[in-house]
């Protein structure tokens, strides 16, 4: 059952977690970037070992963000944004180490609860999804896209970004192996040679999450690194587990909120931590203390964002739909090894499934052990100069894009195109997460849509095929209606006189 466990497997999880923490701890670098940059290294590792590395990077990357959030008031990753609210004030009054350890323990609990949900829920959901026909599969994708767009900061721009992702994913040949007719479409004249198979997923991902992030930093002048003197861990207040007394409900609730947010496609860790934090503040007996160095705020934020890690894998492994941008990159690892994720994945690959659960477990424990006992050293990571890191990352992006399809130079240009596009997205307020999920799911959506019509010859089949289809339509309409109501409420609040 545990044949995958080997010294290499464990070393890769530990190494991935360590590198992930370092990436997460450096402001401007994210868990997604860590996975994007290290993805080509999984090439020759095999699926289980490759996933061991990437899952370590994922868990470590999400957790590492708390270091600069607490010590510098700058979130290392977007998912640590609410950690700054109470962590930084604690650090300023000399309780940095205590705040860091609170965050580390909360991260561990969040990670383990979400892992439990993943282990229990994903196989059940997959068993259920096996019964889906093309119609239900298409509606699941439609539901995923509407939920993602509904939870975007701007619903209209969120939907537009998702549909744009689908559109770009359709460039190239309508593949015969997918039941298509082998004809080209959406390919500008003269580019048939390069775009015959469309844009490859991995260079697109590396461009959007690697190069674009560095271009954003270059635009603002690559801020100077922080000197060691700025990083004050503090010794005035020692950490004890007593700080968690009375925080059990907050811890479990925030972990479950994070897990649930993770299950929703395309919604990132920042939403998980913000919603967890808001709930913790709402239900607290002392909400006025939040934002001024309240440990409950750090607990909510960090258990919420680490709760995301297991949750985001649920739709990926049971439906083939990534829960967030980092799990979208994990699809790349499966693609590299020729394995398709979807409802059949867990049943057909029990060894890989066990390996993933085991890797997540080790990664969470390793993250805790490394950060809890060596937090003073990790705190120094924020001083690594970006002028050394960024060029090396750029080079790794090139390697990743080039090697992904056994050496195609067009993939390197794809990296540049989508890197610039990713930077432009931030300027145009378009959203990268819906775009990338649309890009990943677009080809499947096409197959399910066209095959449904070919099989049944009637568009009403999308509404009448089964009770599942009806439920999915209700969910789709509900998510859109909910988003419209939320947007109107936000608008009303904004228009109210102060």
């Amino acid at each position, binding site marked *: 059952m545990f044949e995958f466990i080997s010294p290499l497997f464990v070393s890769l999880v530990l190494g991935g977690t360590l590198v992930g923490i370092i990436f997460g701890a450096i402001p401007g670098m994210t868990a997604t970037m860590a996975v994007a940059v290290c993805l080509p290294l999984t090439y020759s590792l095999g699926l289980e070992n490759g996933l061991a590395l990437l899952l370590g990077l994922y868990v470590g990357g999400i957790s590492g963000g708390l270091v600069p959030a607490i010590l510098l008031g700058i979130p290392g990753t977007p998912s640590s944004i609410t950690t700054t609210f109470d962590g930084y004030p604690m650090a300023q009054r000399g309780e940095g180490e205590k705040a860091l350890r609170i965050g580390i323990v909360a991260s561990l609990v969040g990670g383990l609860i979400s892992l439990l949900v993943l282990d229990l829920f994903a196989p059940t959901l997959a068993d259920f999804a096996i019964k889906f026909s093309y119609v239900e599969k298409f509606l699941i994708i439609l539901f995923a896209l509407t939920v993602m767009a509904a939870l975007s900061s701007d619903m209209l721009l969120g939907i*537009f970004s998702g549909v744009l992702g689908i559109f770009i994913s359709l460039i190239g040949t309508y593949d015969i192996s997918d039941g298509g007719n082998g004809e080209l479409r959406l390919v500008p004249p003269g580019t048939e040679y390069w775009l015959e198979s469309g844009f490859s997923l991995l260079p697109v991902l590396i461009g959007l999450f690697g190069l674009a992030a560095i271009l954003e930093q270059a635009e603002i002048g690559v801020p100077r690194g922080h000197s060691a003197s700025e990083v004050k861990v503090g010794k005035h207040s020692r950490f004890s587990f007593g700080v968690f007394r009375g925080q059990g409900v907050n811890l479990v609730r925030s972990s479950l909120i994070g897990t649930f947010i993770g299950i929703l496609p395309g919604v990132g860790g920042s939403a998980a931590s913000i919603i967890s934090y808001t709930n913790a503040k709402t239900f607290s007996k002392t909400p006025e203390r939040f934002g001024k160095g309240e440990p409950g705020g750090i607990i909510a934020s960090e258990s919420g964002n680490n709760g995301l890690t297991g949750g985001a894998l649920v739709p990926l492994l049971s439906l083939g739909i990534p829960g967030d941008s980092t799990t979208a990159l994990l699809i790349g690892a499966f693609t590299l090894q020729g394995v398709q994720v979807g409802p059949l994945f867990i049943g057909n690959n029990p060894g890989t499934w066990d390996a993933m659960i085991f890797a997540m477990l080790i990664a969470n424990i390793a993250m805790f052990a490394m950060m809890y006992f060596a937090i003073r050293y990790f705190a120094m990571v924020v001083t690594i100069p970006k*002028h050394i890191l960024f060029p090396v990352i750029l080079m790794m992006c090139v390697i990743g894009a080039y090697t992904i399809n056994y050496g195609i130079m067009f993939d390197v240009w794809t990296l540049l195109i989508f890197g610039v596009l990713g930077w432009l997205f931030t300027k145009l307020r378009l959203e990268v997460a819906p775009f990338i999920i649309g890009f990943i799911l677009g080809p499947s959506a096409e197959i399910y849509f*066209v095959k449904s019509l070919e099989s049944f010859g009637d568009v009403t089949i999308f509404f009448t095929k089964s009770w599942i289809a009806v439920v999915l339509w209700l969910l789709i309409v509900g998510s859109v209606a909910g988003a419209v109501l939320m947007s109107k409420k936000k608008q009303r609040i904004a228009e109210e006189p102060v």
Partner: protein
Amino acid sequence: MGDMTRVTIDFDTSHLIFPTLIAIILGLLGLAIVLRDHARLAEAGVHWHRTWQHMDKPRFLGVLGLTLLYFTMMVPVGEIWPNTGMGFLLCSIPYVMAAGLLFMHARAPRQVLPLLIVALVGPTFVWWLFTYPLFLTLP
């Protein structure tokens, strides 16, 4: 009603059905955005002007230019020594060095030296890793 909802898919043109549908939806969404945000879009010129003004132009345009040059040179240089990955190695060393210098705020020898070491060791290690243990040919 039954006839109105019935669809026959012609296999020869089946590759155009979904892209056409998506293009129409994209167009409609684009139109909705224009109608809703017309005031903001009318001020797009000001927004881009402000972006341009606040941009660190040497670093942003410099890294874009360097990256373009890096990608363009990699293949021709690699063709001088085919299938050895020399194009990658010989272009990456100056690229890492130049990008690092560009991103640097103070260029004193004490700060340049670590960058020089990374620029030499980093690409060489990656080149060795992919060429020998991983058997992947670089440009």
